[in-house]
């Protein structure tokens, strides 16, 4: 199997990707705001928007639909988009940073650290003080695990593919264990949070969540995309990057810090949704190649689309019940992770590991 097709094909695919993905994203948004326990015509949102920007000849949809759209569906879909792109971009960056196709916020335990931060803030009552304490705690938790991973990965000269993964698993299970332990001692009304902070979901996400997350996630992702060339260099080897004059450790700390912030905020919104950060970058790499200049924005778009669709799927499989988006991504993601491991094993035999 050729992983990289010829240049013309890659170029064509790249251009196509950046046309097709936004179109699909808008379509998914319209579908996602329409579908749910109460069906709203997909055109309603367009009609409402047109009316609002001055086309008064367009009839407004009825007010119940507007309420559902604006207060329930739209913020939820936008949150899915933001979280999806944030996690996917973090996945790309971590994979490049650690030269490891299996790295992602959830595999490396960053997500578990965030969850722990969230649960601590709830259990201590800090979360009820201000809407911003919870995201602050998830960011702190993400930083904590990112620091562990960074120290572990730099303590040895060269880190093998599996070392990082195993270290991530250890950190991940440590923090998940602590999360579970905390929840055992929590009061009954907090236990409902248990499910949320172990698998994540998008139910009940409103504008207030977007208000604190968008100002962090959007500039954060844009900043990460500025480091495309550095990510290219790092993913080809730290020694090479060092000899080409890069401040490797400084760059790693900066990039890892940024991913910790983005992951922390994304998880404050949606809980530890798994596999987005692992799956989307690989799919995108398959389509647009490994160059981070196109891979980062493509993953942002792909992650948004993926999570919106997963959420939509979860809401429409068995209405009125909702299957949490974290369950959907896990069901879709686990087989992919397995196939990835098998492929890496095979390549390991060729000495590419």
């Amino acid at each position, binding site marked *: 199997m050729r992983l*990289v097709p*010829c240049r013309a094909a890659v170029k064509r695919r790249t251009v196509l990707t950046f046309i097709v993905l936004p179109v699909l994203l808008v379509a998914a948004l319209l579908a996602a705001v329409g579908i749910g326990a109460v069906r709203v015509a997909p055109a309603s949102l367009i009609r409402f928007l047109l009316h609002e920007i001055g086309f008064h000849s367009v009839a407004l949809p009825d007010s119940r639909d507007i309420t559902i759209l604006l207060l329930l569906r739209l913020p939820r879909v936008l949150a899915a988009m933001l979280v999806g792109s944030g996690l996917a971009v973090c996945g790309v960056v971590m994979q490049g940073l650690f030269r490891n196709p299996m790295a992602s916020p959830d595999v490396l335990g960053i997500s578990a650290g965030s969850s722990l931060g969230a649960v601590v803030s709830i259990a201590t009552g800090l979360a009820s003080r201000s809407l911003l304490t919870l995201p602050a705690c998830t960011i702190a938790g993400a930083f904590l695990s990112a620091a562990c991973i960074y120290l572990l990965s730099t303590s040895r000269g060269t880190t093998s593919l599996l070392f990082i993964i195993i270290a991530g698993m250890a950190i991940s299970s440590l923090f998940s264990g602590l999360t579970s332990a905390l929840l055992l001692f929590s009061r009954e009304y907090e236990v409902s949070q248990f499910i949320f902070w172990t698998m994540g979901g998008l139910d009940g996400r409103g504008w207030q969540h977007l208000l604190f997350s968008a100002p962090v996630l959007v500039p954060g992702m844009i900043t990460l995309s500025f480091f495309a060339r550095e990510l290219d260099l790092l993913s080809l080897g730290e020694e090479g990057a060092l000899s080409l004059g890069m401040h490797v450790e400084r760059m790693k700390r900066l990039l890892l810090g940024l991913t910790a912030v983005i992951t922390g905020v994304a998880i404050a919104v949606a809980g530890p949704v798994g596999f987005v950060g692992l799956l989307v970058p690989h799919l995108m790499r398959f389509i647009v*190649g490994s160059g981070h200049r196109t891979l980062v924005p493509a993953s942002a778009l792909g992650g948004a689309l993926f999570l919106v669709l997963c959420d939509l799927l979860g809401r429409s499989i068995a209405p009125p019940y909702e299957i949490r988006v974290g369950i959907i991504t896990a069901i879709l993601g686990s087989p992919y992770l397995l196939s990835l491991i098998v492929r890496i094993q095979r390549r390991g035999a060729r000495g590419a590991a």
Partner: protein
Amino acid sequence: MSNALLQARGVGWRVGALPILTDVDLDVGRGELVGIIGPNGAGKTTLLRILCGLLRPSSGAVWLDGREIGTIERRSRARSIAFMSQETSASFPFRVMDVLLMGRYPHLRRFEPETADDRDRARRMLSYVGLLGLEERSFAELSGGERQLVLFAKTLVQDTDAVILDEPSSSLDIRHQDRIFSMAQELARENRAVITSVHNLGVAAQYCSRLVLLDRGSVAAAGRPEQVLRTDILDRVYGIRTLVSPNPVTGSMTVSVIPWRAGVTGSRIHLIGGAGSAVNLTRELYRLGCELSGGIAHEYDSDEKLWKSLGIPCVTVGAFSRITDEQVTEAAAMAQAADLTVLCAFPVGPGNSGNLHLAARARRLVVMDPGPEDAPRTFFSEEGRALFEKVSARAALLRYEEVLKLIERGSDGPGDAAERDG
């Protein structure tokens, strides 16, 4: 200050209390191709990484063009010195062109895109290493050798005054090995300073203008290849017995390993050879630990050269001259003292018929019977043939394997066995 582009003074590197490098001095000027040689673990890679500023030495310092390398701003350093690592694996499928363009990183500012010139340079360097047409291929899918050539091209794309190569040919076949070292020589001719670590000592001797031999972290010898590649030095550093000889075709030095010896077993064997007829037997018996003597061979004959280089006592005669009676007498003393004398299968002419007289005086004689694949024993005179018939009449005629078996049975008296077999 000397005019060396790259200078190392008293460079040391230790991991905890364990010294990896101690007190290494090195000057490399423009136009030089310096080879770093030494056994595995001698500190070659560490030294190279220190020389290009990737590692800060625990003691001593490195100057690049008169400035201490640690004080140079990193990108500016990377515009002056390039490093090709041994590491060639790739986790992600980058295109070859992307990999080459990474060499332009120190020349580009953030947000500054690669220019057409950069691409052109990358393409030229790819064509220079002989891989034009692979631009769009995935780097990860190339063979190990092709990856090394691409990484070499990448250091050329970086366009620096000093180039440091760590085992640049470790996964290359001899054609590409020759190519990469010729290109390194060319870099030196372009007035750059090139330093490379090399495992293959012959290659090091052939291409490098100067060699530095590292032994457990310190410089054991440095200088021109013929000053460094000496048996006494190499034997000590590598802990084996080596043989340094000029290659008859290329004129450069080759280093070979002399086979390990089982210890002298006591059997004394005298070999009568010439025209290379005793080479295989000499090597095998030497390995088995026999105490050997040889003769009478003509000077510059390959038998004579082997005996001399292994330190086997032998009687020689000037090239193309006739063996004299004195020489026969001298060699006869050896053949008398030996437990067994082997008459190898060489062509007999007037010049070396003395060897047959010698054989006649041996204490115990075995005559080698040339196998179907060996050169047959030829005679250039009827006198020689008659002499041979006379000598061989009272000796066993044995094949190569039979001779070895006889001697291996060895210490309980090869002479008796010869008689029994005869």
